[in-house]
C-alpha cells in the first residue's frame, strides 16, 4: 500500500501482518483519523477502555512486538533494538509520520523511537513509561499489593489471567527491553528530543509512582507530565474517559493543550 492510498482511503480495520526488520509483525488496526502507533507493555497487546476510545479520533495501529505472540524472540537485545523494529513496522505500514503511544515497557521502546526517528513522530504519548523507574522490587509484593499496584478499579475491567508458560517464555525479553533502572544514554538522548511529549502517571501506580514521569518532565525540553487521579499503573483501563479526552486533546493541540478551551459561559 502506498502512502497516497493510505491517506485517501480509510485503512482497513482488522489484523494484518507486515514484514519488518526480519520479523513477521502482527498489527491490529482500529478507528478513523490520524495514525497513532501503539506499543504495548510487558503483558502483551491489549485494548484497554481508554485506548479503545481513542479510535474515535485516531487510526490506532496496535503493534504486537516480536516475541509477544507465538514465537520466541532471542534477537532483540534492548529497547533501542526494538525501536528500530517499530520504525520498520511504520515503514511497512506506509506511515511517513505518525503519533506514537507507548505503555509501560512499550514506553521505553517509544522513547527510543522518538530518539531515533524524531522527525517522523508528530506526538509522543507515554503511559506509565518504564524508563527511569524507582528501585522497587515487585517480586516482594503480595498478590493484593500487585493487584492494587496495577488496578485502582479492577471491578471495571475483565482481568485476564496471564498464561504462566507464556510469561516465563517472554520474561527475558521483557528484561532486555526494560533495561537498567536509569539509562543514562536514553536520558542524554531524550534531552535533545523536540517531539511534543505527554507523559501520563497514575496517581496510585504502585510500580513507578510519579517518579518516572517527573524525570521525563525534568529532562525533556517539550514535555508535559499529567498525573491521573484514581488510576494505578493501568491508567487507560482505570480512567478510560479521562485518558482518551486528555490524550486526544494532546494529539490535536500538542503542548497548547494547556490552554483551557472549556467554556465557562452559563447563560447568554
Amino acid at each position: 500500500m502506498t502512502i497516497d492510498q493510505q491517506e485517501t482511503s480509510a485503512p482497513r480495520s482488522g489484523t494484518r501482518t507486515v514484514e519488518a526488520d526480519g520479523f513477521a509483525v502482527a498489527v491490529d488496526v482500529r478507528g478513523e483519523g490520524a495514525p497513532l502507533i501503539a506499543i504495548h507493555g510487558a503483558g502483551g497487546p491489549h485494548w484497554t477502555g481508554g485506548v479503545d476510545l481513542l479510535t474515535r479520533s485516531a487510526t490506532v495501529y496496535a503493534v504486537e512486538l516480536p516475541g509477544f505472540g507465538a514465537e520466541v524472540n532471542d534477537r532483540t537485545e534492548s529497547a533501542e533494538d526494538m525501536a528500530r523494529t517499530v520504525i520498520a513496522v511504520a515503514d511497512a505500514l506506509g506511515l511517513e509520520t505518525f503519533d506514537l503511544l507507548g505503555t509501560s515497557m512499550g514506553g521505553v521502546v517509544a522513547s527510543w523511537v522518538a530518539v531515533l526517528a524524531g522527525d517522523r513522530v508528530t506526538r509522543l504519548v507515554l503511559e506509565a513509561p518504564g524508563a527511569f523507574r524507582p528501585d522497587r522490587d515487585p517480586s516482594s509484593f503480595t498478590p493484593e499489593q500487585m493487584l492494587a499496584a496495577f488496578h485502582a478499579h479492577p471491578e471495571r475491567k475483565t482481568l485476564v489471567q496471564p498464561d504462566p508458560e507464556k510469561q516465563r517464555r517472554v520474561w527475558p525479553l521483557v528484561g532486555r527491553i526494560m533495561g537498567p533502572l536509569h539509562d543514562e544514554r536514553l536520558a542524554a538522548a531524550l534531552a535533545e528530543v523536540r517531539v511534543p511529549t505527554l507523559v501520563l502517571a497514575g496517581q496510585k501506580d504502585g510500580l513507578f509512582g510519579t517518579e518516572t514521569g517527573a524525570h521525563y518532565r525534568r529532562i525533556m525540553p517539550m514535555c508535559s507530565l499529567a498525573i491521573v487521579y484514581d488510576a494505578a499503573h493501568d491508567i487507560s483501563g482505570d480512567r478510560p474517559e479521562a485518558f482518551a479526552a486528555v490524550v486526544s486533546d494532546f494529539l490535536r493541540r500538542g503542548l497548547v493543550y494547556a490552554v483551557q478551551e472549556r467554556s465557562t459561559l452559563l447563560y447568554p
Partner: protein
Amino acid sequence: MKFSVFHPFPNYGVPESTWPNPPRLSRVPGLARDGIDKAITFALRAEAVGVDQVSVAEHHYSAKQLSPNSAIGAVLVAQATTTVGVGLLGSTLPLVNPLRLAEEIGMLDAIAGGRLMVGFFRGTPNEYLTYGSNPWESKEVFQEQVELLQAAWREPEPFAWVGRHFDYRTVSVWPQPSEEIPILVAANSPASAEYAARKGFIAGFAFAPPPVIASFASVYRETSAALGREIGPDDMLYRAFGLIADTDEEAERLQERTQYGNFGNLDRAMGGAAPASARVAAAMKGVPADAPIPEGLRPPAMGRPLFMGSPETVARQIAAFVETTGVGRIELVLSDAELPFADAMRSLDLFGTEVIPRVRELVDVAVAS
C-alpha cells in the same frame, strides 16, 4: 498532651440577623478592625500564658466569625506572635481552589515555618450556599482536593492533574510547603474517622459529647492499627467550648447571662435552621435532591460548654474527657461575639496559668496509676 485555643474572630456589637448577615451591618467604621485587633490581642495573650497553639477556621458572610479566608487569619496570628503554634483549622475545601490554598499554605509556611498545622474540612451546611458549591458532590470533591493538594505539595516538577472534578494543565506551586506540616481532617463520624486513619492524618473531633467522641476515636484507632500505623493521643484533637471563671458559680452566671457556648444558638446564627441548610445537610449525607429530608439528621446540640466552671472544675472535666476518649490535643473555644472580651481574656488567662498545668498533673497521675 497539647492545648490550643480556637478563635472565631468575631465582630462585636453587631445586631442579630439571620445568615447571611447583610453587608450593610458591616459598614460600621472600625468594626472589622476592632474584631481583628481583639483576636490578635487574644492570640498574643495565649502565647504568653503558655497555650501551645492558636487556631483559626473559615466562615463566610457572618459577623459571628470574621474569617472568610483561613489563610489570612492564620497569617495575622503568625505575624503577630513569635513561638505559639498556628493552626489553620481549617479550610473548607469544597469552597476553595485547592491550588490557591496550597500556595497560601506555602507562603504561611515561609513565615511561620515549624509552627504550622493545617486542617481540611467539608464545611457546615450554610457554607454550601456561600459560593454555590454542590453539596451532593462534596465528599468526592473533597477527597480529590486532598489528593491534589498533596501532589502539589510534593511533586518536584510541574504537572497536569487529570481528575474527576478538577482539570488543571499546569500545576507548579511556589513556594512548596514543607512535608513536615501536620495535617488534620474532621473525623466527626465513623466514615470520616476511617478516612482520617487511612490517610494518616490527625483526627479532628468537635463539639459532640464524650461517649460519642470515644466511639469515633475507636474507629480511628482500629482502622489505623489494621493499617499497621501506631497512633497516640497527639494524633487526635477535640475542639469544644470552654468557659473558665474564678468560681463555678461565676461561670454559671456568665453562661446564663450570655448563653455562651450554646451550640444550638450558634447553629441557628450560622443559618443551620434554614430550609436550604437543611437540604444541604441532607445532601452531604447522601440524601438525593428529590427525596424528603429525614428527621433527626443533626443530633441535638449542647446548650452550654462541655468544659465550664472554676479552673479546678474544668481541669477535672478535661482530664476525665482525656481518660474516656484517649484524645491528647484539647482545643477550647474561649471567645465569641456574645461573651464580653474581658471575660474571654480572663477565661484564657485561667486556662493557660491554671487549667493546663493542672490537667497535665491529673493526666500524669492517671497514667502512673
